[in-house]
């Protein structure tokens, strides 16, 4: 005789069914929900590539080994990481697995009539009884119908039920979360985002080459860019004279929506972007572009035009690089633009107000190899001076020139630039709809109560009223009291 304990075989299907039950159980869902919350924390503490690529590269410079390991665990891309995705995908599978069967069940339950009146009403809540005066059933029927109870009328009793909205709202709330997830997914598959710096007076043509940076969703290509052209006519920034904080940015543009169309004047503000279908154009940042003319020793123009500088602080002290690759040997200017210049004993040239009230450009002049042909991408705001020698140091106000050995530079004037952010997100309307349904569903499920009320006239001529509230929700007592007083003919 074998002594082994016989375990029931689970088998493959059994195991699957078991795992599915576990996954869709409420306890698992709750654990996943809490895990999702905890998993979101590192992304708020560690810099993320999406939001702050500069900080991330700082991490890599400061502690390379640690950063490498952190990167292996996707700690710089938490919200797109495999482990974060795993949690929310499992959570959503669990949610769907829980909500779909409940939806079907609820759909049937909502169309069924309430169950029969129980035999012993006196065991239910708020039982009331009194001698019948006649006509109670009719009054009860009209009353309950008008307060939208679903009614099962039997010979001498009424069974009424209300509050299915609670479960309906609950189910809609959970399904709407799926809709939000779909919206987010569509946005990342079919969306695009790009940035471009445009000087006032220049045009932005919506083709990939005009962008400074551009990323496409996995299922979108550059052919899908809508063919609009934006001319930046004017940009005005207003600053508070006490706090130096910006008060208002106004950008005036002319827009040609498609080739051959008439230009239309539009105004863009921080909170009101230009909208073309599902593509929006936002005003993101602003700065100054000094306009310079660089001549060689013969007086021929080697470079002319605005050069965007990168703001460094709230008073728009900006750094930039003027590169003259066509000069021989090559010339570069490492420059700082101060909108309202002042001198600080420690920091040297500073700006004391973000508006260009007293602008000045400080620069050093470098001669040699700019290193543009090495194939390594370079910042447009910086110059690699390792193969260059410094031949001069100067500061100019608008209109002034400076001659150095081998040429001259004129600081003609300056224009503001704006950083346009172009975003296409075809999924956002689904997410918005999901959000609205979620709130409505929540309200319905948290503020309605499912309850039953029974009325019976017993053979001995007594009226009996009782009720039952699911989850012992409050308010039924008052409701039954109202029914009773109407049935008794009290007002």
């Amino acid at each position, binding site marked *: 005789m074998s002594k082994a304990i016989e375990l029931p075989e689970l088998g493959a299907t059994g195991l699957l069914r078991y795992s599915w039950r576990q996954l869709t159980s409420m306890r698992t869902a709750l654990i996943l929900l809490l895990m999702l919350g905890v998993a979101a924390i590192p992304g708020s503490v560690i810099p993320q590539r999406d939001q702050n690529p500069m900080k991330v590269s700082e991490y890599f410079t400061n502690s390379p080994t640690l950063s490498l390991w952190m990167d292996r665990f996707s700690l710089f891309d938490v919200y797109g990481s495999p482990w974060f995705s795993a949690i929310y995908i499992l959570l959503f599978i669990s949610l769907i697995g829980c909500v779909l069967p409940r939806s079907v069940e609820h759909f049937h339950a909502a169309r069924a009539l309430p169950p029969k009146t129980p035999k012993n009403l006196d065991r239910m809540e708020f039982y009331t009884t009194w001698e019948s005066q006649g006509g109670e059933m009719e009054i009860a029927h009209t009353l309950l119908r008008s307060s939208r109870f679903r009614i099962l009328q039997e010979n001498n009793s009424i069974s009424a039920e209300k509050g299915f909205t609670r479960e309906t709202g609950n189910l809609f709330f959970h399904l709407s979360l799926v809709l939000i997830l779909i919206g987010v997914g569509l946005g990342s598959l079919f969306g695009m985002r790009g940035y471009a710096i445009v000087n006032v007076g220049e045009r932005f043509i919506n083709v990939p080459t005009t962008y400074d940076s551009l990323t496409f969703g996995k299922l979108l290509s550059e052919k899908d860019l809508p063919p609009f052209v934006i001319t930046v006519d004017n940009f005005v920034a207003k600053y508070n004279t006490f706090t130096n904080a910006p008060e*208002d940015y106004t950008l005036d543009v002319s827009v040609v929506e498609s080739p051959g169309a008439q230009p239309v004047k539009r105004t863009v503000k921080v909170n009101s972007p230009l909208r073309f279908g599902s593509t929006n154009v936002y005003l993101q940042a602003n700065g100054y572009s000094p306009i310079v003319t660089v001549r060689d020793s013969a007086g021929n123009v080697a470079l002319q035009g605005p050069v965007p500088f990168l703001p460094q602080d709230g008073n728009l002290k900006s750094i930039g690089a003027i590169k003259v690759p066509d000069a021989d040997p090559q010339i570069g200017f490492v420059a700082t633009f101060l909108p309202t210049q002042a001198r600080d004993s420690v920091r040297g040239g500073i700006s004391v107000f973000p508006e260009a009230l007293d602008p000045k450009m400080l620069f050093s002049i470098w001669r040699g190899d700019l290193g543009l042909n090495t194939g390594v991408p370079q910042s447009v705001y910086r110059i690699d001076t390792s193969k260059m020698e410094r031949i001069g140091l100067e500061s100019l106000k608008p209109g002034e020139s400076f001659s150095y050995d081998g040429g001259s530079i004129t600081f003609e004037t300056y224009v503001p630039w704006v950083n346009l952010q172009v975003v296409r997100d075809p999924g956002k309307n689904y997410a918005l709809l999901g959000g609205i349904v979620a709130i409505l569903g929540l309200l319905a499920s948290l503020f309605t109560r499912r309850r039953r009320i029974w009325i019976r006239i017993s053979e001995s001529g007594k009226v009996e009223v009782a009720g039952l509230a699911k989850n012992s929700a409050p308010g039924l007592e008052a409701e039954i009291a109202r029914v009773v007083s109407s049935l008794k003919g009290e007002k």
Partner: protein
Amino acid sequence: MSETWAYISNYSIYSAMAVFTLSFLAHAYETAWAVRAPQSTDSTDGNLAIKTLDYTRTEKASRIATALMILGFILLFTGVIARGISAQRVPWGNMYEFSITGALAFTGAYLAALRKYDLRWLGLLVSIAVLLTLGTAIAVLYRPSAPLVPALKSTWLVIHVSAAIISGGVFLLANAISAAYLYLDSMERKGPRTLWAQRLPSLEVLDQLSYRLVAFVFPLWTFAVIAGAIWAESAWGRYWGWDPKETWAFITWVAYAAYLHARVTIGWRGRRAAWLCLFAGSTFLFNYIYVNIYGTGKHTYSGL
């Protein structure tokens, strides 16, 4: 003109603090003096040494305490409105303003709940919390009244921030009640409640009350997050970007969602539910304090 209003605002808030201090003292008096020392005539059996609670003795003090709380609320309300008038915008532009409005919402939530439930015992806690908030606001966070930065100039400021502040006020009230629950629960485990704690509601009532507050305000918090997303879409070009503030708002949402599920579906009650509620509330506080002051990202409007 606007300077006058700024002065009115500041003086209203100073006066509100004075009034809340008096209210705190009245609440403290009530809590302490209701305890009656044993008197020889009280009893002739062995329970002679047992102190009793007699609220008829402190009825007046408790009325005064609540009246002062209402007066403080009105003064604080005036202070917040005057601040708005002086800056010619809604007064939610920096952390000082968030704090005074938050204190207003918290007091408002308490007074509103007081109409329905016997919560006067909580007044001691509410008045000290409001005093601390206002004190920090004035001492550390104060900034002169100034116009808004361009990104904040939107109708959504009113909608999003008001929803967030009201939700926060109610969340913190639920937190206070959960904390009271845990404290009384551990007290009851050791034996009968101490005398002063006897007037506090039963554990069941506290448990139910903190749940009701959360269930009531959870849709509003959901709305605050969604309204923020709509605003972010028009200001920053994306409705969700895992900015630290957004992340923590999400964590708070998830924590309260877990709390509601734990209660409604699994049937958690008592200690576990109270701890979860406290945890959820602390994520809200962390978001408010840490992310505003030390955080990076787009929500750095503290003005610090």
